[in-house]
C-alpha cells in the first residue's frame, strides 16, 4: 500500500511531515511524485528528498523529470531507494536499460500513464501539465512488456480514465497488464473507498496499490484500506 504526494495542482502539505504521517498509518512504501518536473524540464529537488528520507524507515521511491543516469544516482545518494521514470523513458527507452545495468532492476520503476483511445489502451506523456500532455504513440500493453524486457523491476500503471474519479481502479486494464508481465505490477488511479483496494487485489492480482488524493483528503485512511485488503483474504502488513 503506497501513499503518494502529487506535487500537484493542490499542495498536499509538507512532504516530510506527510510521508511520516502515512508511515505511521502503515503505508508500505512512500512514492513522491514531482509530477510537473518533466513537463517543466527539471528534476526533483534533492533537499526535500533528503529531508523525507531521513525521517522515513519504509521504502521511498521518487519520480519526476529523472532523465539522466547522473540524476538517478543523485536521487539514490540523497536517500531514494528506487527511482520511477515515465516521460523520459518514452523519450529514450535505452534509459531503462542503462539504469537497470548500473543501479540494478530493483531500483528501476517504470511509470505509465494510460487511457482507452479508440478501443485500445494507449500511453500518454507529460501528463503533469495540462498544456504539455500528449499521446506517446504507443500501445500500453506493448510498452510495459518492452519496459520489462529492458530491465524495469516494477511497473506502476496509472489508469488516467479512472484517476481522480474515485470510482475504483481500472481492473480490466490492470488485469490485461498483469497478463503481459512477470515483474510486479502496481495499480494506480481511481481509489475512492477502502473496498476499492480489496477489489483491485482480487480482480487484477496486482502486487501493490498506490493512491494519492483519497489519502490526502482523509476520505480513506491507509490503515482502513489495508484492513479491507486483509479482510478480503490477502496478506498485508498491518
Amino acid at each position, binding site marked *: 500500500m503506497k501513499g503518494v504526494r502529487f506535487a500537484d495542482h493542490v499542495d498536499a502539505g509538507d512532504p516530510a511531515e506527510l510521508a511520516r504521517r502515512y508511515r505511521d498509518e502503515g503505508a508500505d512504501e512512500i512514492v513522491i511524485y514531482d509530477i510537473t518536473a518533466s513537463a517543466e524540464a527539471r528534476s526533483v529537488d534533492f533537499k526535500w528528498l533528503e529531508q523525507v528520507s531521513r525521517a522515513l524507515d519504509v521504502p521511498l521511491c521518487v519520480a519526476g523529470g529523472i532523465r539522466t543516469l547522473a540524476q538517478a544516482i543523485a536521487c*539514490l545518494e540523497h536517500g531514494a531507494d528506487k527511482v520511477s521514470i515515465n516521460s523520459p523513458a518514452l523519450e529514450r527507452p535505452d534509459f531503462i536499460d542503462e539504469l537497470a545495468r548500473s543501479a*540494478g532492476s530493483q531500483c528501476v520503476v517504470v511509470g505509465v500513464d494510460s487511457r482507452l483511445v479508440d478501443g485500445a489502451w494507449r500511453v500518454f506523456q507529460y501528463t503533469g501539465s495540462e498544456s504539455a500532455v500528449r499521446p506517446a504513440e504507443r500501445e500500453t500493453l506493448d510498452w510495459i512488456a518492452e519496459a520489462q524486457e529492458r530491465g524495469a523491476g516494477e511497473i506502476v500503471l496509472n489508469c488516467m480514465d479512472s484517476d481522480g474519479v474515485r470510482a475504483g481502479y481500472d481492473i480490466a486494464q490492470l488485469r490485461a497488464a498483469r497478463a503481459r508481465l512477470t515483474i510486479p505490477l502496481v495499480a494506480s488511479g481511481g481509489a475512492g473507498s477502502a473496498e476499492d483496494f480489496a477489489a483491485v487485489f482480487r480482480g487484477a492480482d496486482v502486487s501493490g496499490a498506490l493512491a494519492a488524493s483519497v489519502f490526502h483528503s482523509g476520505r480513506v485512511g491507509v490503515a482502513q484500506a489495508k484492513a479491507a485488503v486483509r479482510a478480503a483474504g490477502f496478506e498485508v502488513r498491518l
Partner: protein
Amino acid sequence: MSVAVVKLGIGNTASVLFALERLGVRARLTDDAREIAESERVILPGVGAAAHAMALLEQKGLRGVLACFTRPMLGICLGQQLLFDASDEGDARGLGLLKGRVTRLAATPRSPAPHMGWSKLLSLRPHALLEGVREGDYAYFVHSFVCPESDATLADAEYGARFPATVGQGNIMGCQFHPERSGSVGARVLGNFLALPW
C-alpha cells in the same frame, strides 16, 4: 562507535546511513581498506549486481579486509549474498565466508520477480541479532536472488519458496531484507547489530 558502510558503487546507501543516524550512530561511507579494517562494525550494503559488486571489491582491494574482519559484519541484501561462496548472478565468486551458492528466485504467477515488498520473518532461531523480533514480524525485501539454506540461517521468509531472510555465523551476519527500510523491526535488527557484545 565507529561503523564503516562499504562504498561500492550505486545504491541506496544514503538510506542505510540515515537509519544508523536515527539510532544515534554517525557511520562513515568509505572504500578505504584501512578505515574499514579499523572500524568496530562493518556494513556491506546491497548494491547492483553480484558480479559487478565483487569486481568493485577486488578493484578497491577490499576482498582481503572483509574476509579477515574479526568484528561484527553485516551484509544487507546483495551484501548478504556476497558473504557466500558464489552466486549464479553473473557467475560471481563471493567472499566465501559462508558456504553455498546464491541462486535465482523463481518467478511464479503468484509471485512476480523481483520480490519487492513486505514478507514475514519465519522460523526464527534464537540469536542476539533477532533480540525482540517476533515470529511473523514483517520486513521489506527487494531482490531477485536468494541465499542457500544452511546452519547459518537465522530466519526464513517465503515468496514463491522459502529462503533465508537473515543469516549469522560467528561475526558474520546478513539480512536479505532491508533493515534500513523495515520500520521498527528493521531498526531493532540494526540496533541489535550495533549492540552485539564484542
